[in-house]
């Protein structure tokens, strides 16, 4: 189950944010993601399960000076997050929105990549209509060279890898170090 907690009367989802280990000090806020990994637009990315935050650290954050990573934990306000993973309405809202946006951009002569459409939506749509985040998932496959199993019965990959992008720090609470120097 997704972990939820209340923060000042607001229902929040527990999220995990992985970053390179820092020799001095720790983060007081999550780091905004703007690069190629920002697949749902520029924002603050969290995993909803600790397991995947650890895999992300192992795969992506051990290349720095320290060779280690930290996992931070935070509460993410749920009220204005598009839930495209577990809500039928949320999924179709998100899907229809993407398609409508692509058609609109094409009508203006703009043939954007999907990443660019998401960046445009995050900047020009979601934050303007008070959508505070998006919950989305992909299906990870068993890696060939790692001792990691996502599915015991290939090719049925039944495990969702769920992420939440939050667009504004004000909807992220109690951000704190959870696992240090992994």
């Amino acid at each position, binding site marked *: 189950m997704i972990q939820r907690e209340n923060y000042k009367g607001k229902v929040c989802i527990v999220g995990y944010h992985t970053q390179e280990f820092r020799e001095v000090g720790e983060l007081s806020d999550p780091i905004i993601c703007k690069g190629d990994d920002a697949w749902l637009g520029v924002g603050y990315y969290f995993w909803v399960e600790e397991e995947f935050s650890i895999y992300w650290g192992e795969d992506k954050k051990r290349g720095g000076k320290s060779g280690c990573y930290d996992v931070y934990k935070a509460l993410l306000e749920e009220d204005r997050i598009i839930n495209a993973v577990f809500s039928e309405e949320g999924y179709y*809202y998100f899907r229809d929105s993407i398609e409508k946006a692509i058609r609109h951009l094409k009508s203006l002569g703009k043939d954007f990549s999907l990443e660019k459409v998401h960046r445009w939506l995050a900047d020009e749509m979601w934050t303007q209509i008070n959508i505070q985040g998006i919950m989305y998932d992909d299906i990870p496959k068993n890696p060939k060279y790692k001792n990691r199993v996502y599915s015991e019965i290939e090719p049925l990959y039944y495990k969702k890898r769920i992420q939440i992008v939050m667009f504004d720090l004000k909807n992220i609470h109690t951000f704190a170090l959870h696992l240090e120097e992994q």
Partner: protein
Amino acid sequence: MDYKKAFEDFNNRLKELDAASVEAWERYDEERLLQDSLRSGHLTQSLTVKPLPILNITVDSSLMTGLAGGETNYAMAA
């Protein structure tokens, strides 16, 4: 979340996003990506300048012999 209301909001906002606003956003996005690449060290400053136009240069055929045969021109590569 009230998705029906969110869809109305989406449609209303979409109507406001015309070609001029999309082009302005593209310029902003390009600059942001560039700055982010520079900060993360993925680009060097020399790559951030606008590309030069391609020049139409005719090379004398006598100079092409080695290259056409597949030799690597190490002087050029260096």
